[in-house]
């Protein structure tokens, strides 16, 4: 059988992948769009002036004849998958009046580490406005009608993603929120809010949240888990270069051990240190970020993600592992059960730990390679560096599978 050309995929091959790995409709839409555009140009730097002009065309369409003043445009770092530009807008803000609002444009490059829907991200952030700290959301250009690529515009949230104080004598790479450490004086307050927010997210009723771009998996079945495995199996087929037999083993293990969904929850899917902002002087979480992977599914997925050893580190005794660099796992689970009123099933939690490491290995080794190889992002050098994390995820996944065999 002839191997597919992954850098220039045929329509027939794309169709076969869609049929083989059914996923939610909107996710299918963005993955298909990615594959249809793959043979097109890579990412070319967009001058700030050009992007500014495009944003102004969006503002013109959204604000009509209302007078406004756009300014202070500058590039932002942070976020390994999306471009971010900060700017200010002096305008008549609905419900507020004339003000100068600090805003952020969050836009996809030609391809991302994670190909996601701006519409879903927009709906999720809207759904949690006033429930947990989220940045105020203003506009969504889901199909790149105005901007070069799909994008969101939201309000600038004050705060930082990692503490200014660093761990003494540490040489660990903390790029993209990996291995962060918090000084003891911040841990208790931040950990309490971290758990509280997660409990609120998981107990929010999805039925009145306006999540029209989401499919709802059937309760009492394994459909939720199956959609998840299909997603990452499909992405591996689309992106991977070098085969990894262990991933085939993992996919089989996951399918043989799929958990039944006992309750619908809205899932953030990237809930970890590095994806929330906080202010140091009062140890307060000011915004939960990066909702792009969110879905309606199983709460254990978020719990397993948050407790990943990649997103935490050892306490100052170098013995106790702290999830997110803040709190031991047993305390995290205990507090979560109390705050949410939801039980944690250890077997389902274990399954989602394997699943999450599976997804991270696919993302870092498969997708990071493919998009850097085709020059598809604004920071291929960062994406290439992240390939080096993949073996750690694979190793964690292997050890977790061995525990469950």
């Amino acid at each position, binding site marked *: 059988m002839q191997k597919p050309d992954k850098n220039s995929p045929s329509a027939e091959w794309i169709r076969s992948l869609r049929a083989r790995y059914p996923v939610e409709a909107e996710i299918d839409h963005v993955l298909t769009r990615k594959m249809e555009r793959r043979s097109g140009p890579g990412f070319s*730097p967009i001058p700030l002036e050009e992007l500014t002009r495009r944003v102004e065309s969006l503002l013109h369409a959204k604000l009509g004849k209302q007078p406004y003043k756009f300014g202070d445009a500058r590039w932002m770092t942070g976020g390994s998958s999306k471009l971010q530009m900060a700017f200010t807008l002096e305008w008549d803000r609905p419900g507020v009046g004339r003000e100068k609002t600090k805003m952020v444009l969050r836009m996809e490059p030609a391809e991302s580490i994670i190909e996601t829907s701006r519409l879903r991200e927009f709906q999720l952030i809207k759904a949690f406005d006033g429930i947990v700290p989220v940045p105020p959301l203003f506009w969504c250009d889901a199909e790149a009608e105005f901007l070069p690529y799909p994008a969101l515009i939201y309000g600038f949230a004050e705060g930082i993603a990692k503490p200014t104080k660093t761990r003494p004598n540490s*040489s*660990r*790479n903390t790029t993209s929120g*990996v*291995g962060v450490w918090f000084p003891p004086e911040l841990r208790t307050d931040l950990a309490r809010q971290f758990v509280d927010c997660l409990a609120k997210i998981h107990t929010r009723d999805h039925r009145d949240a306006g999540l029209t771009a989401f499919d709802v998996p059937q309760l009492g079945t394994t459909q939720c888990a199956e959609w998840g495995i299909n997603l990452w199996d499909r992405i591996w087929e689309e992106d991977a*270069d*070098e*085969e*990894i*037999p*262990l*991933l*085939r*083993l993992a*996919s*089989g*293990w996951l*399918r*043989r051990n799929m958990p039944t969904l006992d309750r619908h929850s809205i899932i953030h899917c990237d809930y970890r240190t590095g994806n929330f902002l906080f202010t140091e002087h009062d140890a307060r979480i000011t915004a939960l970020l990066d909702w792009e992977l969110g879905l309606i599914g199983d709460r254990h997925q978020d719990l397993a993600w948050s407790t990943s*050893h*990649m997103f935490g*580190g*050892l306490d100052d005794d170098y013995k106790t592992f702290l999830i997110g660099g803040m709190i031991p796992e047993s305390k995290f689970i205990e507090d979560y059960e109390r705050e949410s009123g939801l039980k944690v099933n250890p077997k389902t939690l274990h399954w989602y730990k394997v699943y999450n490491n599976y997804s991270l290995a696919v993302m870092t*080794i498969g997708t990071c*390679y493919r998009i*850097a*190889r085709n*020059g598809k992002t*604004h*920071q*291929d*050098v960062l*994406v*290439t*560096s992240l*390939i*080096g*994390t*993949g*073996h*750690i995820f*694979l*190793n964690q996944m*292997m050890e977790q*599978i*061995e525990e469950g*065999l």
Partner: protein
Amino acid sequence: MQLRSEIKLASMIKAMKDVVIPSIDAKNDLAIQQAHLIVGLLNLMVHQLPVQFRFDRDELKRLIDCAQGLSGLSTDDPSIGEANKTLGTRCAAAAAVLERCAGDPAELTAAVRDLREATGELMAAAASGRDTAALGVVEKAVLSLSREQLLRDRSLMLPQGWEPDPTLIPEIQSLLQAVTGNP
């Protein structure tokens, strides 16, 4: 091993051209010149890396041919005779090396990829098949293979600083020596 030199070099060149060079102060001639030289040398590596091994093998072959051509050299000068004898000895050693280097690194990499793929296909077939005994055997073999390989992959990436506890990972030199016996 996915993080090979080709992809690293390509992403470094793109970062230099798209982000770093345009950001350098236009008055800093030294920085601009050196940044362009970095890109130039990185591009040279892109050009050289795929042929480096063959280039060295080709040179060695011609050096051996040259030495062998001189083996019949007739001379009354003892110092010339001695030097030619040394050349002959070294030529024999070099010829043995050349014989051991018959394969190309690209062939080695292709064989690795090919065998990974075939092993992955067997694993996938066993996972979706009905023979649970066969599945158990294949899983055990793949886990054993992966355990050793991942240790080497992680060791090779140690300088990146991702490992939560790098002291748990042996040095790559010792891991490679343990299996191949090569120093």
